[in-house]
């Protein structure tokens, strides 16, 4: 890993962050007056003006923008307009729930998607393959809110096995994690299948077969590591998605994570919180992409020396 490679990546990351923050700032300021939304429609103008002054929203936009950046540089993301707590506190409260849900879902999607993809590839064009691929298409095309509500109807309402919503016990985790996990398991299965098919026809796999290497060992040692490169790309996306990728699922299951926080902050025009969440999402995305690049270098030495990644830049 040379320094220039890393430097370019880092520079791009910073530019991306700048763009995200600026974009969020402009869009949110344009789309509505936070004070009006906070205080309601029937408050007199003097009071509205007083609150605008109190929160610095009466200043010219460029000044507000610079102040906001100054704050970020000091690690201060400001205060939530709705409850006046520090944005960092508000976000820190929501992150553990989201990580718990996200990682569980990721495990489910790996545990379901990768084996299914392998099975489909090994049984290419047979009935098993068709069956698995139908499931995969179903998995990633069914909307999360629909699958979520179906699960609630089945397991909460009809069977009464699982709680419909909220967070607390392991039972609360099952339905949202399955909802989230199944949708990415579908696409993961498709990726695994196609990249397995690709490497199964490569000469080194055929050579291994000719040398008499047992089938299981051939798949696990020769095919899988090579098929893993595109998978890492997909997983990088998923990792980046962890923070803000569960908005719908979190809403349906009343899961108190970052997605929910973002929805409520947007509808309340709670600028500081929205910007904080976006910033954090961008940081996760960028970090995930950097990680992917590093992992590429590790599993495929050719990438390191070329100084560029085959997966492209996802930031």
């Amino acid at each position, binding site marked *: 890993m040379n320094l220039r490679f890393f430097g370019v990546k880092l520079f791009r990351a910073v530019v991306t962050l700048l763009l995200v923050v600026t974009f969020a700032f402009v869009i949110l300021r344009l*789309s*509505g*007056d936070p004070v*009006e*939304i906070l*205080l*309601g*429609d*029937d*408050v*007199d*103008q*003097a*009071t509205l*003006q*007083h*609150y605008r002054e109190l929160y610095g929203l009466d200043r010219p936009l460029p000044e507000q923008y610079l102040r906001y950046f100054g704050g970020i540089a000091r690690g201060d993301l400001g205060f939530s307009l*709705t*409850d*006046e*707590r520090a944005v960092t506190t*508000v976000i820190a*409260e*929501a992150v553990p729930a989201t990580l718990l849900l996200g990682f569980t879902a990721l495990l489910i999607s790996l545990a379901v998607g990768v084996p299914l993809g392998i099975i489909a590839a090994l049984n290419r064009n047979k009935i098993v393959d068709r069956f698995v691929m139908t499931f995969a298409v179903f998995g990633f095309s069914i909307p999360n*809110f629909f699958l979520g*509500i179906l699960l*609630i*109807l089945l397991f*909460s*309402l009809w069977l*009464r096995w699982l*709680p*419909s*919503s*909220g*967070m607390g016990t392991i039972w609360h985790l099952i339905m949202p994690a399955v909802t989230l996990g199944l949708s990415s398991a579908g696409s993961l299965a498709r990726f695994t299948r196609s990249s397995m098919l690709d490497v199964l026809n490569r000469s080194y796999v055929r050579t291994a077969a000719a040398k008499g290497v047992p089938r299981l060992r051939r798949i696990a040692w020769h095919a899988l590591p090579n098929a893993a490169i595109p998978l890492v790309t997909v997983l990088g996306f998923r990792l980046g998605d962890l923070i803000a990728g569960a908005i719908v699922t979190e*809403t*349906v*299951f*009343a899961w*108190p994570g970052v997605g*929910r*926080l973002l*929805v*409520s902050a947007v509808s*309340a025009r709670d600028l500081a919180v929205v910007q904080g969440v976006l910033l954090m999402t961008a940081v996760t995305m960028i970090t995930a992409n950097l990680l992917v690049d590093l992992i590429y270098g590790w599993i495929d030495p050719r990438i390191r020396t070329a100084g560029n990644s085959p997966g492209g830049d996802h930031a």
Partner: protein
Amino acid sequence: MISKLFAAIMLAALPLTAAAADNRPEVIVAVNELARGLEPAENTGNVDVRITYSIFDTLIRRDFSVQGGGPKSLKPGLAESWTRISPSELEVRLRRGVRFHDGSLFTADDVLFTFSPERLTGGKTAAIPSGAAYFGHLKEVRKIDPYTVRFVTSQPDPVLEQRLAAYTSWIVSSAQWQKYRSEDPNWMRNALREIRWNPVGTGPLKFKDWRKDQYMAFTANDDYFGGKPAFKSVTFREVPELATRVAGIASGEFDIIVDVTPDQIATLKRYKDVDVRSTVLENSHIVVFNMSAPVFKDKRLRQAMSLAIDRKKLRDSLWQGLNYTPNGYQLPTFGALYDAKRPGYVYDPRRARELVKASGYDGRAISYRVIPNYYLNGMEAAQIMQEMWKAVGINVKLDLVDSFKQVRSPGMEMHAWSTTYRIPDPAGAISIILGPKNNMQTTWKYFIAPEEFNKADEIVRTAATDKERLAAFRRMMDIIEDEMPMTFLYNALYSYGTKKKLAWQPAPLFYMDFRPDVFRVTQ
């Protein structure tokens, strides 16, 4: 030996009897959104008062079960009794021996602090600037003795008793606030940051803890002056998705769910142990016409637009016919000021067509600004009305906007709005929305009021007798039904799903009342 055995059995049985003694339910309420803060005057939105209403008490309490409203619907809360000294003075005797949740005694000092200029009535420098809209005219609250106070207003206020039973009148603990007092002139704003999430009141709900986006938990205040609550605890859980709330009450996880839309009522009624309780809110959905807009220069066009609306059809198709349209800018709960015989806003398409012709309307498209999803059924109503207006020859185009700032940007011709009756009296509704100091007349100039209207408004707000006030109020309604700065569609329906065994009735405001005289458990 036998006595020892007996004692052991008794001891073992003790926890059992103790448990049996408190078999009150632990109530779970699934709400669409939790309160945004628990300071009772600071946050007065639907999602806030639903919870704060049972943490805090008012001096005077409005009994929603009394038909017809008026003074007879007012009963003692933290006040024992009250007497009029003059049109602008009210003396209130306080209940003795009431304790706040933190154990401190309730006295006149708490009332003085609650209504103090620095907390509530001082306008934009107060900790709660919006309080002035309700009590800006309160000159002072005088302490006569530790259990007697006198409210003095700067002008006669015939409905002060009603105001003390309504929004922003919840009594807070002075002692709790004083703990945060400092030299800093902004100490109250800083105190709010703490107090907002640590409410200390006198009501049946005693705050336990909360988690943002998750829950707010309360235990029963067993020393409540109105009697021991019928529940052991009440927890509000945030469940934003209606389908999830419906599944949760059907499966038995929740005891009460809020915000049930009319189309879900039939679904919920299918479950044996679930009941739907609805209330028609003291909030009217209206259409505002801009009298300053060139297209509406002739009032006959505004009158025609009102006459073209078939309100019964709207109610039947959108609200399953479960709500009503008020007959004028008034409610039956206005008591002596209710004009029962008034026909109100009628449907007469033939007359509407005549008026359209007479007004010289040239057929150009009139813009109707609507914020989608702001009001329940607001979009649907707009689309249906668009057809009704078309039927009488008026061409309306729907302009969907994002906020009220955009609604009121230049070019406003008509928009969807609602009006809440803050107190059951014209002084809490028509005077606030259309009065001479309100935005409708001043900032936006959508209502160009005849001089006579503002004179009548003065009488409604300050005259001492019901007779004078009613005559003036009728005149105000006559004027707005003729000038037509707005027309009324209906009052919105609000429904809860609830376990049948919980006997309680929703109020026509967003309050949920957990006091023992309203909230009971039947077996």
